[in-house]
């Protein structure tokens, strides 16, 4: 398969993630969108690593994986906090500060 096929696939997945981020009101739903986006990044990295013929991209993808895990942990902690303070996990339930 040509490299561009993988990149196109990644781009499609990334844009699905964008769609998810934009449409989900549930904070965990937004996180799912973000996961799709980072997953697309990893696919990119590994495909490009292969295309470049070395392992740096794979290493990068590993780092990216770990970062994502950390991000999800923090995100869920914040979602729990939001739930406890607002009795809701909808992102637009917290709208006290604006303007």
């Amino acid at each position: 398969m040509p490299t561009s096929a993988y990149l196109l696939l990644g781009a499609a997945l990334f844009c699905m993630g964008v769609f998810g981020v934009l449409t989900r009101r549930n904070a965990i739903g937004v996180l799912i969108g973000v996961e799709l986006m980072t997953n697309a990044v990893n696919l990119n990295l590994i495909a490009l690593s292969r295309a470049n013929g070395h392992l740096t991209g794979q290493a990068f993808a590993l780092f990216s994986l770990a970062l994502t895990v950390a991000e999800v942990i923090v995100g869920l902690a914040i979602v729990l906090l939001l739930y406890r303070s607002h009795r809701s996990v909808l992102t637009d339930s917290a709208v006290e500060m604006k303007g």
Partner: protein
Amino acid sequence: MNEWLSGLQTLLIPVLLTAALLLLILADLLLPFRGGKDGSGGNPKNALGVIAFLQLAAVAVVSWLSPASGLWVGKSWVDDSWTVFLHRLFLTAGMLAVLGMYAHGKKNFARRQGEFYTLLFASLIGMTLLAGARDLLLIVVAFELMGMPLYIMAAYGKTDGDSAQGPAAPGLLRATPARRPAEAGLKLYLVGAVSAAITLYGVSLLYGLSGSTQLVDLAKAPSSPLLFVGVAMTIAGFSFKLGLAPFQFWIPDTYQGAPTPFVSFLSVAPKAAGLTALGTILLIGFGQRGDIWIPTLLAVAVVTMVAGNLLALPQLHLKRLLGNSGVAQMGTMIIGLLAVGVQTAHGQPDPAGLRALLFYFVGYLAANTGLFLVVEALAASRTANDAPETRDMIAGLSGLNRRSPGLALAALLCLLSLAGIPFVVGFWAKLYVFVAAWQAGQAWLVILAAALAVIGLFYYLRVARSMYLGEPTTEAPVPVPWSLKIAILVTALATAGLGLMPGPLVEAARAAVAGFTGL
């Protein structure tokens, strides 16, 4: 083995900070919590703030004693004079943050002070790593290391003054935490997580097209549409942390809801770190090919300055005002970066813009931190009698001069500095940036920025006016905890002192840029 040791030595400051972080965790485990209802007095955990400060001070002393070695760790990190300058900047910011936080933490999250300082240290480690990072992978990881603790710290704390409590939930969820910090953390986090994904996508393209993660190798990437997309997405991703429009909307909300001493930190150090990271990527990687990024960044800078100033104009809430004005300030700093970019692209790298940038960081650190700390001092001194709607509002500063002339003077100096009035450091910072930009042929940008600065002057002086001409609701002086007093004094003195005698700082910035490897 030897290589390892020299690596550790080169990475002295981050390594020391990591050791300090571990020590802090240990101290936190050893010190019991014992506090009254209000957490005042006799809580052994209070010592953590002192320990954190002393640790940072010790690291800062080491940093001041050890000149740049110029050594590399692999090909990803370098300990040059640029790195050293930024280290000192971040350590100073960290110390100010601890000083600012000490009284706040003691009172508001007595039990969780240790974790706060631990997170602060983690964020500082990220910044110190960013300062010397010359590798995309390291930049991304260090950037996240800096950023993720910030998400948590923004959601920290329980007091937000006028928090409305929701109905109590059963069981596990009996106690309701404050609403505003949660909201602040959520907004910062959501925008940050999306931006992180965007940055990663952009960076993955840069890596793929150049075949390497090292910044110097980025220049080898052949010009292609995908490269432009990669650069654009990288800029977009970083713009979130820098608070460039339209990625800046989280700023006022998060500033408003997060603990003020933390905001004083959030509003300066991470931005400086992020800007230097973006700057190193663009200048080292694409310095010769300014056409890839200069037009984009130029547009972003203009939009940012306009939006920041206009959004700050109607604000009556001090933290929101400072948040939006900070957006405008970032726009001005970007001009410095653009100036270097244009000169470098013309094949005559002139580091005037970089010098201006470093100078600006210091001035901005002093003025912005000082101002937020004054806001904190006022908020902390509030009693139950004060109207809740005046909390953190400009109106809350009304007549401050009559209550606490010293505090008002400190705030005034900081305001004038941010507005770019002569005799305080902010003026030199702006002038320096403008000269660099004009030299790079961006005269129109200078005139635009100067015109927008007039708007800035308006809202900054409105605050000053309220302090000096407004009627105080009480004549009682504002009680300021000693730690906060020291921090405010230091920032005010720096603002005035560097305004009257910017020479040493100019020289330091010159030396820092002279040793910048990569240009």
